[in-house]
């Protein structure tokens, strides 16, 4: 409820009205939850807490169990083991219609036989609310659909249907709002708009949002906290910047953005730094960014953190440096994406801003790659270096 000044007058009553009563929502605790379908473990002993008022994203590839997790919170699936607690209340055994949560379904699941007003009013009518009309109108105002109240869902565009789905859930003042891939069916431009819109609504109403998505950009744009989920487990949880800049597993490193992972080993420490031997090249990095109990590690660096210069140019003091030959250069205007071959044959990606009008380096140029030790991370070499990387079609 901080950015009141940004809200148009039309939407202002929301913050002082019924919605404000539940401002902050409630903590959602998922405690040691496991869900099995036959032999398949969809969610594996998962524990996490989503603080009240947070915009939380559960991010993972399809089939990682994130939707199952959300459905268990909604009460649409029963956990095989574990507890789900909202606020102070254990809701594990409650039927879905008794839980203080509402869901924005994938593809919205709007009732096709009811108009927009009745869709939004559905939950209020079930609860026997006495202020249905006022509440629905206020909510339609919030999502800017007042003039569509008497239309049927099929007469609305995808983005409008999406807003109806949000309004239909939010109007009930849930303690937690669950969003299941809410923007998956929208085209790219609309998705960007709705990301901003959803973030605005969440800031306005202050309810806890738990959002499930496979789109890393969507998660990073909207959520304050992201949990990256893989194969029924949480790989890493934290603010978007922590996950991106300091991934702790190869899966997170590859699933969020791209990473160059180079095989190396830790040879010792010096102050707060760890010393590395990367295929014979000596490098250094902060020990705090080493996420491995093993001496054998994947030395990681994001492509945009790597400087690329013609061989022989001066590199910044104290940087990790490796010689390479450019094997591919894609000029895309604002930047150039290089593939550079290291002496031992591995190719790494480099994103370079086009700071001059000179054009990019050419394929075959001998270059030196350098990056700040602060931007280096190290992961356990026993993990699969390709985990979470985008698969090229037909590649298995």
């Amino acid at each position, binding site marked *: 409820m901080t950015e009141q000044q940004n809200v148009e007058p039309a939407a202002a009553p929301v913050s002082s009205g019924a919605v404000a009563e539940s401002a902050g929502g409630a903590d959602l605790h998922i405690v040691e939850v496991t869900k099995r379908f036959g032999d398949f473990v969809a969610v594996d002993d998962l524990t996490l807490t989503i603080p009240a008022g947070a915009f939380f994203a559960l991010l993972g590839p399809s089939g990682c169990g994130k939707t199952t997790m959300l459905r268990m919170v*909604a*009460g*649409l699936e029963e956990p095989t083991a574990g507890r789900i607690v909202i606020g102070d209340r254990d809701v594990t055994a409650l*039927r*879905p*219609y008794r839980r203080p*949560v*509402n*869901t924005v*379904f*994938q*593809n919205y*699941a*709007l*009732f*096709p*036989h009811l108009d927009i007003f009745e869709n939004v009013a*559905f*939950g209020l009518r*079930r*609860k026997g609310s006495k202020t249905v009309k006022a509440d629905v109108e206020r909510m339609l105002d919030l999502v800017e659909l007042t003039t569509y109240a008497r239309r*049927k869902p*099929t007469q609305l565009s995808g983005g409008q249907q999406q807003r109806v789905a949000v309004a*239909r*859930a939010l109007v*009930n003042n849930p303690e937690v709002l669950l969003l299941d891939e809410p923007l998956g069916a929208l085209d790219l431009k609309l998705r960007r708009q709705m990301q901003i819109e959803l973030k605005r609504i969440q800031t306005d109403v202050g309810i806890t949002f738990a959002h499930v998505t496979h789109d890393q950009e969507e998660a990073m744009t909207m959520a304050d906290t992201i949990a990256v989920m893989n194969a029924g487990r949480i790989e890493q949880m934290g603010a978007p910047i922590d996950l991106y800049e300091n991934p702790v597993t190869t899966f997170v490193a590859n699933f969020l953005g791209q990473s160059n992972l180079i095989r190396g080993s830790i040879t010792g420490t010096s102050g707060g730094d760890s010393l590395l031997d990367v295929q014979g090249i000596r490098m250094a990095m902060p020990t705090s960014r080493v996420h491995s109990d093993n001496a054998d590690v994947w030395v990681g660096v994001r492509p945009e953190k790597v400087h690329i210069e013609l061989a022989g140019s001066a590199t910044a003091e104290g940087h990790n440096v490796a010689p390479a030959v450019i094997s591919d250069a894609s000029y895309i205007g604002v930047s150039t994406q290089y593939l550079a071959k290291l002496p031992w044959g591995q190719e790494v990606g480099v994103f370079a801003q086009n700071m001059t009008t000179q054009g990019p380096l050419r394929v075959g140029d001998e270059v030196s790659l350098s990056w700040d030790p602060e931007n280096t991370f190290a992961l356990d070499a026993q993990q699969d270096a390709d985990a979470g990387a985008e698969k090229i079609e037909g590649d298995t």
Partner: protein
Amino acid sequence: MSAVPATAKKDTGADTAQAVGTRWWTPYALLSPGMLWLVVFFAVPTITLVSTSLQSGTLESGFSFTFEFGNYVDAVSGSWEVYLKSLVYSLLATMSCLAIAYPLAYTMAFKAGRWKNIMLVLVIAPFFTSFLLRTNAWKTILSDNGFVVTWMHNLGILEVLNAIQIPVIFADGISGADRVLQTPLGVIAGLTYNFLPFMTLPLYASLERIDVRLIEAGQDLYATPWTAFRKVTFPLSLPGVVAGTLLTFIPAAGDPVNASLLGGPRDAMVGNKIYNTFYRLFDYPLAAALSVILMAMIVTLVTLYVRRAGTEELV
């Protein structure tokens, strides 16, 4: 008609669209197969029926077209009770069908899992035997000393049904005190049985199409399973309900077989009346007038019903 492809071939690609658009008869040519079908199978029989209903004469002296509206007066005055009975019987049969078919179709659509296809086959299976044979088989099932009648008698159901006596429609009660055959109940039971698949299949089709996420959304929005059914599942299945009731009611209203095999002489329906007038009395004009009235009645009722149900807005 054959000119269309022939001339179309001569046109070069660029001006085809324009050339076709300028020939006024093209749409009619394209419509002609359907129109021909309608004329042969609908317009001609209907016109023949209506014109026959306005003829006068006898089989011996021959019939001639004389605008004999008296046939309609005779039909209504002589048979209004039969019409009324037909409507009530088929209406009750339709309601019984709905009551049996809805849970069946619901189970098939949502609960049956791998048994779904087997259940579908079982619903359709009776069609492999003749309609007449199956109806005759019900004579045995409902026979006076069969187990159905014995049970219904012992449970006191027959006594209750026998006590419901409505003049004209159920003059002697819905069933006999100790029998079902030769009573209205026999006819209604036969109609219900025979038209059950026509109710079940459209219901199943529309229930099966319902996105289960809509029902989940209902429950997520505080609807108990029963409320979710009333407010989401049932309204969404209305197209199936309308289609099923029409497919049951229309043929049931004109059906002569069940009434003649399972009912008594006083339980005759319009179908029997028309049959007798045509084949026994050879009064073709009167039989035609009876048919036209039945048709008009059904069309009127169905129109009112479909308007009322307002399902055209449903997806």
